[in-house]
């Protein structure tokens, strides 16, 4: 699956669309940034409600290609700018993390399961 398909699959709106449309192979759901760094895999989608620019810093370090902000949490402008600078896609959705993770897991299937 490519990042460009996420909007349709997750019914999420893309609020930062200047990204590298990479292949997505996994997802990770967490609001703890250290947890994301420890466990998220490269080329993942990060599902979170942590809407601030430190999330982008963590995504950059872990090669996460897209961040989905759940529960329609407002996204500050400096976060959008940081994502643009790092060419990371940013989505928002009114669905919560559980629902979003479920849909994404269904689409990615077994490729997202831990090795």
């Amino acid at each position, binding site marked *: 699956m490519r990042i460009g398909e996420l909007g349709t699959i997750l019914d999420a709106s893309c609020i930062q669309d200047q990204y590298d449309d990479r292949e997505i192979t996994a997802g990770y759901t967490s*609001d*703890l*940034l*250290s*947890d994301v*760094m*420890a466990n998220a*895999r*490269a080329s993942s989608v990060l599902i*979170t409600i*942590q809407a*601030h620019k*430190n*999330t982008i*810093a*963590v995504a*950059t*370090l*872990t*090669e996460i290609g897209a961040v989905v902000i759940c529960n329609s949490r407002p996204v500050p402008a400096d976060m959008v700018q940081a994502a643009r600078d790092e060419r990371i896609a940013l989505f928002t959705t009114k669905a919560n993390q559980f629902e979003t993770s479920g849909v994404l897991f269904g689409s990615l299937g077994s490729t997202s399961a831990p*090795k």
Partner: protein
Amino acid sequence: MIPLPLNTEESPAYILELIYRLKIRNVMTTRLIVAARDDTLRHVQKLMKENAITGVPVAEGPRLVGLLSMDDIIRALDGGYIDDLAGKWMTRNLIVLEDDMPLSFGISYMEKYRFGRFPVLSKNKELVGIVTSRDIIVALLLEINNEMERIEREVLPRPETAGGRTRRVYSTRRFDFENAGRASSEIKRLLKEQGVAAPIVRRVSVAAYELEMNQVVHSVGGRITFTSDADTAEIVAVDMGPGIENVEAAMEEGFSTATEWIRSLGFGAGMGLTNVKRVSDEFSLESRIGAGTTARSLVRLRPSVGEQPSKKDTGD
């Protein structure tokens, strides 16, 4: 000469130089709110309220003739003469500063007279400004800030890349989440440019980010020093306190002393130090209460054959 509220014999030369070099005109407010003699005290009170000020000079053209303070207004309200004219109740015997005086005069006057403000006159006795302690604080803060920036530029080692060795020093500040992550982003870029394999770059970046955030969240501020050559990347994080009370507990996953609001930002999960240890080939942590904490992480950039990189976080 009125004494300054500091020991001028032992003060840093810069502070003395500063308060003598700056003139009153450099710190005063020139946007003046003035009243006329035949304005009512009620009008003066309105001026104070609208402009959030506590004193209003009374002027006749460019000449200062008196001053009304919040105190005068309170007395007028209490005494029932708030509709009287300013000229009747204003203070006439005024202590003024001249715009050409050094700032040290202003500070001495503040100390001696305890007034909230001093009108400022030019050489030809025209009212040109007003000085409050707030004006002085702001001016000093800006000047000291400039000076500290200059000193930091001098003291901090310059970036160097010599003989295949790269060295960078970054400083962190308490709760400065705006700039947090800068060091780790740059370290990541440097290693990438050096051609280091992505999973190893990630390990160093994770160590750098966690150590950086630890300083921002828990310390009063500190310094991150990154050194790399062809074989190793080392991050040394030194902070100036307060120190970790129980180093063993701090190394336990899930242990955290972070406050609620820090946690609400996604930090303080109690995973930081364990993350650093996990991605490091060598890791050490020393801390003393009151002195500070030093953490060191070393990652080998070219794992030798036989080593099990799968134990480490490789991002896959």
